[in-house]
């Protein structure tokens, strides 16, 4: 089932930039993201990918530019003009953030069910039975046996933790999910399963995703479009296959050729 998509951009970055004092985080970032679209941001470490993601997720204030976001009511607003309360509400309803280290994205001392249910309770869910049913349904969807609903994430494997993180983020049916290297701490076979799962959920729910990765294979598998960053600037953008098969910039060529059998 494909969700119904809107033809106006969901999120657009305009001349977005961040300086840490004298040092450059990223600058002059411009792009539009549409509903149901997966955008990969690739580049070596230190290229400004993570800074960009933090800016987009409003975790960092920018030093230049704006990020416009089309809210659920259809109104487009600059994210940095929102009040703290509005931003937090957005973060736990309309957005998801899947972290590289599951320990940053999960409450490790709270059971799997509590982790998935937290967002439901944050938006006013006050019926234990229904919260639990929804949680167990989502565990099922991310291939965690529902019997493990009361287990702590501590007892979960790395792959399970990442899947739990995904369930926790998707339970409120967000429209936009940020992913920061979601697979890089996993071994190859687990990575493949997780990517498969993410790809399935993305197309099923019509999610827009911004995924930061240094792994070009992940970008190729998941994303429609790709943005290559270097030294804080976007040096190349385009359709993923196009950029990866026929890179224009010298640096992108280097990046593509440095991957073992990508």
């Amino acid at each position, binding site marked *: 089932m494909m969700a119904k998509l809107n033809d106006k951009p969901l999120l657009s970055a305009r001349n977005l930039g961040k300086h840490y004092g004298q040092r450059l985080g990223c600058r002059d970032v411009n792009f539009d993201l549409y509903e149901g679209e997966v955008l990969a941001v690739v580049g070596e470490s230190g290229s400004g990918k993570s800074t960009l993601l933090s800016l987009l997720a409003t975790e960092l204030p920018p030093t230049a530019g704006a990020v416009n976001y089309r809210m659920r009511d259809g109104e487009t607003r600059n994210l940095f003009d929102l009040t*703290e*309360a509005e931003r*937090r509400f957005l973060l*736990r309803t309309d957005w998801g953030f899947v972290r590289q280290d599951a320990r940053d994205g999960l*409450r490790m001392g*709270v*059971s799997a*069910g*509590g982790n998935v*249910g*937290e*967002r439901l*309770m*944050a*938006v006013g*869910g*006050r*019926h*234990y*039975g229904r*919260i*639990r049913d929804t949680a167990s349904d989502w565990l099922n969807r991310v291939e965690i046996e529902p019997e493990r*609903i*009361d287990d702590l994430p501590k007892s979960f494997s790395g792959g399970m933790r990442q899947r739990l993180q995904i369930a926790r983020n998707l339970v409120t049916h967000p429209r936009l999910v940020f992913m920061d290297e979601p697979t890089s701490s996993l071994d190859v076979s687990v990575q493949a399963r997780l990517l498969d799962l993410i790809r399935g959920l993305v197309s099923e729910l019509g999610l827009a995703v911004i995924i930061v990765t240094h792994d070009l294979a992940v970008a190729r598998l998941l994303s429609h479009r790709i943005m290559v960053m270097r030294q804080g600037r976007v040096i190349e953008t385009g359709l993923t296959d196009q950029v990866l098969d026929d890179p224009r910039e010298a640096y992108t060529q280097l990046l593509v050729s440095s991957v073992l059998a990508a």
Partner: protein
Amino acid sequence: MSAVAAPQASGYNFAYLDEQTKRMIRRAILKGIAIPGYQVPFSSREMPMPYGWGTGGVQVTAAIIGPDDVLKVIDQGSDDTTNAVSIRKFFAKTAGVATTTETKDATIIQTRHRIPERQLTEKQTIVFQVPIPEPLRFLEPRETETRKLHALADYGLMHVKLYEDISRHGHIATTYDYPVEVADRYVMNPSPTPKFDNPKMHMSPALQLFGAGREKRIYAVPPFTKVRSLDFEDHPFEVQKFDKPCALCAATNVYLDEVVLDDRGGRMFVCSDSDYCEERRADGHRGELSGEAPHLVGGAA
């Protein structure tokens, strides 16, 4: 103890604290009353007792007490435990005020762990000693973040705790310091009173003040304010229930303490509120063990 005013000890200001300090505390109290359930920071003073012994409560009491007040101090419902006795003596000495053990005679009741069984009145103020004022403390370690959560009324986390209770124990296993929502806004720790006392806070005619000395916070529930214990629709809030009435005064619907009688498993359950129990016994109520209890606690033997 009878309500006889003792002469004030020399060398101290009335009620120990200097007037400027009292003024600062009163300001915090007024702000607390104006914003029910909000934790107001105040510059807590060193008191002649260790943290954890009621330094917050003592400072609040010292700031509001006047020469005409009658003070009652309870610790775990009882008037005769160390903490209660020494705080009562402290104010008898430094303020020369009358003290009492009878709830009905007191104008200020400082308490640790209980709210008296007898319904409080508009003329009374109850002062709670609070060890940890922050209800989100063990859920979110960052104080900057918990303040933000309060400011935004972002209390989903509180329910995560209750969810965890039910998923582990099958019911909400929090029995004391049970979080409440005050006046439809702030979530508040009622101090470590048993949840049995939570309903007494709701629409209470008495002013309720909370002082946390170590944590330097004061908060308040004004008279006739809504106080709702947090719960789930399908797991509603419930207070503790006891199978038997009090063994000494046969009271039901009161909070009972377990008292071990011997080393062969003998035990009895008696009112935790010692004044309430005494009053009932004076009125002729008799529990099943009152015949065997020593005369000192109101029995026949």
